[in-house]
């Protein structure tokens, strides 16, 4: 060998050994004849381990048929360029590689072997996969996702953007973002770009954008700076969501609220006049009937006096009805202001008050010794207790000793408060009627009442988000149970 030839060989050997790519040579039977340091780094085997062994050692079993095909091509003198495949390392891990293989001929031009250059593209593959996954997400998003430069030139345009605004990517990429901005809002875009340049995010900015066919959409925009590897802001990503429907719903809601407020004010005015004007004639009926009884009682026989008493009773009952209905409508109108209330103490105090009004009645009240704190509107809750304990008093009227018991249980993980009495009870088949306005299960002759109390109670409980139900049997007492919903 000439000294030039020797130098050239040494140079080639230096290049091969300093290459980052694995450079391997093999015979046409696939037996390894050289193995550079990069091959050792890439596959984990040393040259001593590999030279003389078949290259097939590196091929994962699922790709065993590749090597014969490659060898066949080499024998025909064909090159293989940038063939992407997978190879197995000494430790068993599989890596993605791109290989180029060229036949090696001897001086006579006969193919005697092959050189193989392999590059590890595992990371490159992973990055590509991430990218395609991300782009699939961007593409499948219902939101419009748009990329733009700091000058507002559109760089990317997903399918969501196409669906929302009607332009295809071909129509808008490279154009100014102003194509979707109504003219009177053009300055908005400049403001957003200014903030993006400062590296700021613009979140949930509600505005209006125009579609290709000229419709204006209510949208919510979140825009973030896009940075290059060195952290410099090079553009912006913009995510736009169609909130037209949401806006429409909001407006409808506001309008409905306004109408409800108006109806409420009218109802308030109505109740006011009911309270004031309907009661005045009743006072006259009652008062003058009484005057008649007092001043002319001696001119009326017993039947005449009884008629007048009935007139008075009816007037008084109607007065009570008006009061109860007013209460019911007040409950419906008033806001619920929750605070901590001791329900047991409320039951105790209410019972004590009722007992003081009926000193002859024997009442045993149990279950109210320990505080039971609930989160409810104290005034409304007082109305509930007044009605329920009042009912317990009323319907135990024919008992020698009235038993009233307050207790706390649980249902579906929620506390249930119950008030039980040993009174007249009711037929469970009418239980559903109990809470209706003007529904009564007893004749006024047995127990007086207007049939509004439990309707009021139910309305209060519902306004708290709770439930109320009743259990009982005729002459076997009644139990009213309720939950108090949590703060919304």
């Amino acid at each position, binding site marked *: 060998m000439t000294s030039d030839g020797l130098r050239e060989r040494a140079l080639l050997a230096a290049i091969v050994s300093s290459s980052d790519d694995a450079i391997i040579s093999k015979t046409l039977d696939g037996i390894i004849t050289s193995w550079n340091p990069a091959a050792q780094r890439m596959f984990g085997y040393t040259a001593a381990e590999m030279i003389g062994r078949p290259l097939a050692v590196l091929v994962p079993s699922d790709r065993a048929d590749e090597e014969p095909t490659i060898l066949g091509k080499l024998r025909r003198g064909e090159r293989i360029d940038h063939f992407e495949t997978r190879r197995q390392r000494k430790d068993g891990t599989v890596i993605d590689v791109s290989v180029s293989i060229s036949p090696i001929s001897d001086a006579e031009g006969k193919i005697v072997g092959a050189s193989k250059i392999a590059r590890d593209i595992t990371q490159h593959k992973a990055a590509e996969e991430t990218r395609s996954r991300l782009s699939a997400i961007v593409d499948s998003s219902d939101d419009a996702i748009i990329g733009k430069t700091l000058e507002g030139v559109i760089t990317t345009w997903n399918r969501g953007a196409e669906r929302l605004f009607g332009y295809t990517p071909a129509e808008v990429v490279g154009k100014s973002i102003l194509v979707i901005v109504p003219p009177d809002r053009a300055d908005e875009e400049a403001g957003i770009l200014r903030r993006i340049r400062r590296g700021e995010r613009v979140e949930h900015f509600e505005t209006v954008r125009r579609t290709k066919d000229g419709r204006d959409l209510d949208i919510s925009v979140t825009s973030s700076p896009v940075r290059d590897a060195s952290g410099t802001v090079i553009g912006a990503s913009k995510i736009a969501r169609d909130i037209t429907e949401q806006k429409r719903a909001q407006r409808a809601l506001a309008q409905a609220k306004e109408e409800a407020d108006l109806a409420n004010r009218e109802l308030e005015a109505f109740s006011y006049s009911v309270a004031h004007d309907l009661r005045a004639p009743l*006072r006259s009926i009652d008062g003058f009937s009484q005057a008649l009884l007092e001043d002319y009682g001696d001119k009326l026989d017993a039947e005449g006096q009884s008629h007048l008493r009935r007139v008075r009773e009816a007037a008084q009952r109607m007065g009570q009805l008006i009061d109860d209905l007013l209460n019911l409508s007040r409950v419906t109108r008033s806001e619920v202001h929750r605070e901590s209330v001791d329900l047991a103490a409320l039951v105790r105090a209410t019972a004590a008050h009722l007992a003081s009004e009926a000193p002859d009645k024997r009442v045993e009240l149990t279950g109210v010794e320990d505080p039971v704190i609930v989160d409810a509107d104290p005034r409304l809750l007082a109305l509930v207790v007044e009605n329920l304990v009042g009912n317990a008093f009323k319907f135990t009227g024919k008992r020698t000793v009235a038993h009233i018991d307050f207790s706390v249980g649980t249902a579906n993980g929620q506390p249930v408060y119950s008030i039980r009495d040993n009174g007249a009870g009711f037929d469970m088949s009418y239980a559903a009627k109990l809470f209706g306005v003007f529904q009564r299960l007893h004749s006024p002759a047995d127990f007086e009442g207007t049939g509004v109390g439990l309707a009021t109670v139910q309305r209060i409980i519902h306004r708290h988000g709770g439930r109320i139900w009743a259990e009982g049997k005729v002459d076997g007492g009644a139990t009213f149970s309720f939950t108090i919903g949590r703060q919304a």
Partner: protein
Amino acid sequence: MSDERGILLVEDNADDEALTIRALKRSNIQNPVAVVRDGAEALDYLFARGAYSGRSAAKLPSIVLLDLNLPKIDGLEVLRQIRAEPRTRLLPVIILTSSLEERDRLQGYEHGCNSYVRKPVDFAQFAEAVRQLGLYWLVLNQPPPVGP
């Protein structure tokens, strides 16, 4: 002067007027009762003007029984003007009304009423309320000293 210990009843409803006077009589409250039919008349009476310009403005009733829902000038406005006038600002005013509305009670007290009593439908209760009112305000209660 309130030496005649009179009662000014501001009431537009003739029935309520008759019943109130009946209740007062039954309770043996003999004090003279002047009746006016609306807010404007009530103010004319108290300030001795218009149809009442012949009255001595210095002569004030012991108490005013004031309905809220009145023709022309409503009860709250009457009360406001009574409190705004130095000569009548301490005059005991009892609101006697059908309304139990919270707003009315609140505004009644805010405008400076001395008491707020609801007229019950049941005449026996109504009569009892008027009796207690009369006893308390005309007998038990010490009126404010007469100003200089």
